């Protein structure tokens, strides 16, 4: 009888509550963070330096092509309009210096005039990032493998052109309905562009890009917009939600 009483006490409400609360705390506060790993961008790219420092517009790098498609990340061809290092000349100088053209660390350490003379940055930290871009990518003819915070899979067709006219100020009327879809803070100070709706807020002011948070299971970005979010906004805006709208 004594044993049965003890057993009844151990299997009572209290342990249940302990277990319940413990996993609730873990499940809300700890485990969600474990789903993601932080991955740094391949280069430190400062939007602030390019926008504030050089007075560049968003459209200089992120533009619509003639056919209406969106250029997305700038290619070397675009970057080279300012970072004017001739890859051929640079490779010749690297060969003359007896450096393996694939040994980017050695090239950066060599401070070659053909590269150093073309760097536009003034302070050491920015110059280092710029040099890294030039040596690792521009003169090697490789595009920078930027990590897309808003990565969408291949089976989703997203047209920037179709969403170009969305006005954040107008959408503010739906702020409550859209609270789960977008960061409500974007409605506080609607800017000239609507990029904040989906992209990192005020990225144009950013000096060091935040780490990309990759889902360890799916591989997607933490910021990847899920289908229900697209559907919510489409429904609120009276837009079609048929499969073929996004899945071509």
């Amino acid at each position, binding site marked *: 009888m004594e044993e049965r009483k003890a057993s009844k006490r151990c299997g009572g409400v209290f342990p249940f509550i302990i277990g319940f609360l*413990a*996993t*609730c705390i*873990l*499940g809300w506060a700890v485990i969600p963070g474990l789903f993601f790993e932080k991955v740094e961008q391949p280069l430190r790219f400062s939007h602030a330096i390019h926008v504030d420092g050089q007075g560049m517009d968003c459209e200089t790098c992120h533009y619509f092509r003639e056919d209406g498609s969106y250029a997305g990340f700038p290619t070397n061809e675009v970057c080279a309009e300012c970072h004017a290092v001739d890859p051929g000349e640079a490779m010749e100088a690297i060969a003359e210096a007896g450096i393996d053209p694939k040994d980017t660390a050695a090239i950066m350490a060599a401070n070659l005039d053909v590269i150093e003379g073309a760097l536009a940055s003034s302070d050491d930290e920015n110059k280092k990032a710029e040099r890294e871009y030039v040596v690792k990518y521009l003169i090697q003819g490789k595009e920078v493998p930027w990590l897309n915070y808003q990565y969408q*899979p291949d089976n989703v067709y997203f047209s920037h052109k179709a969403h170009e006219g969305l006005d954040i100020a107008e959408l503010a009327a739906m702020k409550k309905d859209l609270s789960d879809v977008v960061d409500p803070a974007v409605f506080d100070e609607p800017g000239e562009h609507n990029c904040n709706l989906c992209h990192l807020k005020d990225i144009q002011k950013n000096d060091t890009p935040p780490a990309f948070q990759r889902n360890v299971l799916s591989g997607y970005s933490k910021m990847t917009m899920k289908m229900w979010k697209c559907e919510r906004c489409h429904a609120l805006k009276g837009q079609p939600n048929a499969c073929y709208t996004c899945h071509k």
Partner: protein
Amino acid sequence: MTVGATVGILFTPTVWKALDDVSIWTQNWPWIPRLKYGENKAVATVSKMCESGCAVKVRTVAGEAFGTMGNTENPISGGGVCPLCANGVQVKNSPNRIKSPMLKGEAVTWDKAKEIVAEKLAAAGSKVAVISGDQTGTINEVFSALLASKGSDAFYAMPCDMQSACKAWNGLMGGSGQVGYDMKGADVVLLAGADALESWGPTVANMKAFADNEGGKFIFAGPFQTKTASVTSKWVPVPAEGMAAFTLGICYYVLQAGKSVPAADFDQFKAMVMSGYTPAKVEAATGVKADAMAEVAKQLLTAKSPVVVPGGSVGAHAAAFALNLLLGGGMKVLPEFAKAVGSAMSRAEMMKNDILQGVNADLLFVYEANPAYVLADQVKAGFTVAFDCVNTETTAAADLVLPIPHSYERVDDLASPYGLPQATYTMGAPVCKASLDVMNAGDFVLGLADLGFESFQEVIDAKVSAIGADADSLVEGNAFVLDETPDVSGVTLAASVLGKAASPVKGTGAVAVAPYTLLNVGTANQATTPNAPCTISNNQLVGDKLVVMMNGTTAKKLGVSVGSKVKLSGGSGECQALVQLFEGVMDGVVAAPLGMGHTTGDEFSKGKGDNVYKILTVSSEAATGASTWAGSTVNVAKI
């Protein structure tokens, strides 16, 4: 506590998120192809997979080619593309590409390859020859200049209608420039053996001309009702070996109507035709009814701008040119574009040598041609260097194989594909980067001898400059058109030769063989392409079996019927095939598709059907000194 923990976790997003992520994870298999993102472009260039070459636009994304379409700005294309060139990207990405230089089956470096070829070139002296499968490229200037530097004139083109036309016009008749045909502007077009809407000449431009020529009447003459004949107004059954006689038979009516031409030998020509090619004699020699010839002649005579487009032997071409001169219609004479390489041969000189009479050299260069497939018995060489981008029977047999970039990876050009009514030059720049260890054949050859250029790009630049074209416009895909006409006053009608050449010569086999080419099946130099086999009909291939067509009368005579397995013996070989009945084939004729039966290649071409070139007989065309396959016959045995 466990129960509490289990219930508690269900009140958090953890389980649901994990399930969601896992469901997404199951879609991320590594073998699922990933899209490449970037700018979509349509880049103009040329494709050299078909014999005439196509002006195309290659669709790219982020600089990677993924599709081919026509080039509306270029008259060679007019927005269309042939079945071979349509699959250019698939061939570019094919596992059948040659990946590095190969010496007798072993990979070698380009430096080693160059060292070997330089050594062989020095030892060969003037016994150097070139076989080119490119009819229109300036690369031929580089190869012929190399031959000239060695004191050789052994430049050979693969057998083609352009060669027959050159031998007839520039050789027999003393003409200059190149013959072309205004099929768009003509009101009556007699296709005398030219399968113009399927495989002859610039097929895409021909089809555009056919489509645009709403009021024109097209007549096809040939041994069987080809796809071209199926859409023309009339099909006149004419055996291939009798085409020259048939054409002269029409000349008879035209001369009778009083037509003349200010040629030095006109009187001789007229006398020859009026006595030797009377309707009765032609009917006796060819089986073509006099009434049929009279009807065709009547239509040509009443037309404002008639044109006769020949196909086949040199004699057939000369007869057609004579008829065109008498009619004064849509036959055009195009000037030849200025050369880039001073010591290079002219096009007529390049077409002069007859590969069917055999090639024998100490050192043989083969450029994008497949003589080992087409002319296995005719080509002999001490050391063969084969330039190609894909494996073929010729590369398999060559001593040294040098991989060249695919058309979309190299600079190249198309100078006046044979058949166009105007001298037309189109340039092709690389659309994408070469993915294999390849080198442009021009660059390799220029490294062997001092021909005045460092690279093939320089040669093309010089060509563009020599002809006076705008390089920027060419890069955009536009054609440069030279609207001049060479002096034709000295042209003769080759009366003395034609009188003999036009007599039909036929083999002794049971039935005549009418070989034909379909571009989706392949050509002499290019096997069928990855997407094309599904378009090959049961009239050409059933399973892996070749299909030949004959009419019911012929089948009855041979004791075969639909589906019979037969062995065709002729030339120096034999073929196995299945029989299909088609009443659009002349009596005593078997129609057999060329381009199949490859022993080297990819899964789409290797072991499919049989090689009809094996059963063709090379015969010398009396008087012209040229060789021809026309008149080939075969014996047919049921197996």
